[in-house]
C-alpha cells in the first residue's frame, strides 16, 4: 500500500477524467479510451493498468499522446483546463443558443396509408386536422423569441403540401419579421413531393426552400412501404425529385430512407437506387417506436441487432462504391464522424446531451399545442399527451419553464444517466428520454434493454473499429464523408487515428 502511494506521489503526471471500453475483437489495441473533450485513443489492455497506476514511461510516445489528448496532465508544468474548456464549450455550443429548429405541423392529412407511419396522419379529405391561421401567427412569434441567430423552419405533416396556403402564410410572416431581425433562416418542407405544382415551385424558388423527401429504395420496396390508391408512390416521388432539381437545382432536395423488415434484405438495391437518382447522401434509419409504427410493430418491426447487421452490410457496400468514385455518404455515419473527429457537435438533436428536445427544438402542432420534439407529438397520437409544453399562444419563456422541460432535463443529460455515465461512447452520443418513455415507459430507461443504446453502441463501435483497422481506402472514404468532398478532392495524406 505504502509503495504504491509513493509511486503515485512521485509520478510526474496525474489522471484527467476519462472513460474506457473494451472491444472484444482480438486486436491487441482493444481498449478504447475517450477523454471529456472527445479525443480518443486505442491502447492495449496492459497499458490501461499502467496508466491508471501512474507508472507510464514519461519518455514514451504513448505518454506524449495521452498528454496531448487530455488523458493526463503534469501538475505545475501545464494547466490543461483552459484548453479543455474551450474544446468542451465548442462541443456543447448548442447550449448557448435557444431552440434553433422550429417544426410546424401544418396538417395531419396525407394521401398515403403507410402502416409504419411514424408521424400519424388523417385521411386526405378529413377536415379539422389543419393548423389555423391564428395558431400559425402565434407560432411565428415564438420562433423569433429564440435567441438563436441561425433558425430552421421545417414543415411537416401528414403531407404538408396539402396545406400549402398555411406554409405560404408562415414563410411570408417570417420573412416580414426577419427584415428587422436579420436572422439566418433556412426553410425545409418534409414531403412526398406528390402534390408539387408550378405555384409551389415558384414560391420555393423565391424563398430558397429545401425539400426533404422519403425514398425507401427501388419501386418494389417503396411502393410496398407506401401504399397509395394509385399504387404509384415511387413514380410520383421520383417525378417530384426531378421537378425540384430542374427548377431549384440538384441539391434542393434530399431523401431519407425508412426501413421495414423487408428492406433489410436489400441493402445493395436501396443504395443502388440512391446512386441511380443522383443523391450524394443516404440516411439509413430504423423504424421509430411511434405513431402507427408502434401499432404495426408485430408485423413490421425487427430487432436492433437485425438493423445493425443490415447497417454493417450497407456500410461495406457504400465504402466499396465510394472507393470506385461514386460519392454517396451515409448521413448518420457522417454525423457520428463529426462528433468523433472534430471539436464540434454535429448539431443533430438525437445526438445531444443535454437532450435536443425542447432545448434545441420546438414543435407547433396543427391544433396549437406545442411539444418539445416531433416524437413527443407522435406519442400524443398514441394517446399520450403528458409531454405537451403548452399552447402556441404562450411565450417561449413559459413553454421552456414547463414541468415537462424540467422532467426531460432531469432525464436528458447522458453524462449523468445510469450506464451512460460510465460509457466511453458518451462524448459522441446523446440522451433521448422521449424514446425511452415510448419504449420502456420510463424516461430514464434501463440501458441494458435500450434500443437507442444498442443502436448507438453498435454503430459507434463499428465506426471506431473502422477508424482503427480500416485500410487507406476506407479511411479516405470516411474522411470524404466528414468533409463532404468527393474522394478525388481530398488531399492525399489520409487520416490516422
Amino acid at each position, binding site marked *: 500500500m505504502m509503495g504504491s502511494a509513493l509511486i503515485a506521489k512521485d509520478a510526474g503526471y496525474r489522471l484527467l477524467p476519462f*472513460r474506457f471500453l473494451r472491444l472484444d475483437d482480438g486486436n491487441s489495441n482493444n481498449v478504447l479510451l475517450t477523454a*471529456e473533450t472527445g479525443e480518443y485513443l486505442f491502447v492495449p489492455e496492459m497499458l490501461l493498468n499502467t496508466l491508471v497506476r501512474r507508472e507510464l514511461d514519461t519518455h514514451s510516445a504513448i505518454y506524449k499522446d495521452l498528454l496531448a489528448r487530455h488523458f493526463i496532465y503534469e501538475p505545475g508544468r501545464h494547466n490543461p483546463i483552459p484548453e479543455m474548456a474551450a474544446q468542451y464549450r465548442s462541443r456543447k455550443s448548442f447550449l448557448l443558443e435557444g431552440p434553433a429548429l422550429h417544426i410546424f405541423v401544418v396538417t395531419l392529412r396525407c394521401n398515403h396509408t403507410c402502416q409504419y407511419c411514424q408521424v400519424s396522419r388523417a385521411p386526405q379529405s378529413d377536415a379539422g386536422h389543419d393548423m389555423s391561421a391564428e395558431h400559425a401567427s402565434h407560432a411565428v412569434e415564438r420562433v423569433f423569441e429564440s435567441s438563436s441567430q441561425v433558425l430552421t423552419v421545417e414543415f411537416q405533416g401528414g403531407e404538408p403540401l396539402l396545406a400549402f396556403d398555411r406554409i405560404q402564410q408562415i414563410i411570408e410572416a417570417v420573412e416580414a419579421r426577419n427584415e428587422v431581425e436579420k436572422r439566418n433562416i433556412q426553410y425545409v418542407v418534409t414531403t412526398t413531393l406528390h402534390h408539387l405544382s408550378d405555384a409551389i415551385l415558384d414560391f420555393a424558388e423565391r424563398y430558397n426552400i429545401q425539400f426533404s423527401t422519403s425514398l425507401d429504395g427501388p419501386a418494389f420496396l417503396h411502393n410496398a412501404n407506401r401504399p397509395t390508391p394509385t399504387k404509384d408512390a415511387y413514380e410520383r416521388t421520383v417525378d417530384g425529385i426531378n421537378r425540384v432539381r430542374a427548377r431549384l437545382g440538384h441539391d434542393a432536395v434530399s431523401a431519407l430512407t425508412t426501413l421495414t423488415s423487408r428492406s433489410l434484405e436489400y441493402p445493395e438495391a436501396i443504395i443502388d437506387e440512391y446512386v441511380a437518382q443522383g443523391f450524394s447522401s443516404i440516411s439509413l434509419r430504423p423504424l421509430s417506436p411511434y405513431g402507427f409504427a408502434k401499432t404495426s410493430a408485430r408485423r413490421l418491426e425487427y430487432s436492433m441487432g437485425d438493423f445493425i447487421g443490415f447497417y454493417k452490410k450497407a456500410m461495406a457496400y457504400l465504402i466499396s462504391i465510394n472507393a470506385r468514385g461514386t460519392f454517396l455518404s451515409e448521413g448518420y455515419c457522417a454525423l457520428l464522424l463529426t462528433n468523433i473527429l472534430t471539436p464540434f457537435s454535429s448539431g443533430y438533436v438525437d445526438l445531444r446531451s443535454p437532450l435536443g428536445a425542447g432545448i434545441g427544438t420546438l414543435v407547433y402542432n396543427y391544433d396549437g399545442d406545442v411539444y418539445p420534439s416531433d416524437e413527443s407529438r407522435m406519442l400524443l397520437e398514441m394517446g399520450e399527451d403528458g409531454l405537451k409544453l403548452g399552447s402556441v399562444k404562450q411565450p417561449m419563456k413559459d413553454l421552456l419553464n414547463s414541468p415537462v422541460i424540467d422532467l426531460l432535463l432531469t432525464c436528458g443529460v447522458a453524462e449523468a444517466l445510469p450506464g451512460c455515465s*460510465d460509457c466511453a461512447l458518451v462524448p459522441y452520443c446523446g440522451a433521448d428520454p422521449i424514446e425511452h418513455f415510448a419504449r420502456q415507459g420510463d424516461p430514464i430507461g434501463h440501458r*441494458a434493454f435500450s434500443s437507442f443504446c444498442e443502436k448507438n453502441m453498435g454503430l459507434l463501435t463499428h465506426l471506431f473499429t473502422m477508424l482503427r483497422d480500416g485500410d487507406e481506402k476506407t479511411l479516405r472514404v470516411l474522411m470524404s464523408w466528414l468533409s463532404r468532398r468527393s474522394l478525388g478532392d481530398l488531399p492525399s495524406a489520409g487520416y490516422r487515428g
Partner: protein
Amino acid sequence: MEWNLTITVNEQAYSLRVVQRVAYAMAATLSIHVKPNGQNIDLEIAPTLIVGGNDSRPSRDQAHELVLRSLNDFAMREQIQSETSGLRELLVNVALRGAES
C-alpha cells in the same frame, strides 16, 4: 441448461457501488442479486431469461469470467473517478460559464 453461481467479494476490494454497477451493466445477460454479507458482498448470479434480455446465454464459467472482469473494470473506473474527483465539474463550470443566461 440453467445454472446458478455465487461469487463472494470483499468490500475492501470491491465497494457496494462497484458491485451494483456491475449488476446494472450486465442485466441483459446476467441476473445478479446483490447481498451484503458482513465485510463481504455475495453476488447470486443466473442467466437473464426475461423478454428483452440478450439472446446469447453464457455458460457458468463464462459468466464467472465476465463478472470478475466487469468487477475489475468498474473498480478501475471508481479509482479513476476518485483520482479525478472535482475535475469534471471544474471543466464543465469553466466551459459553460454564461450558458445559463
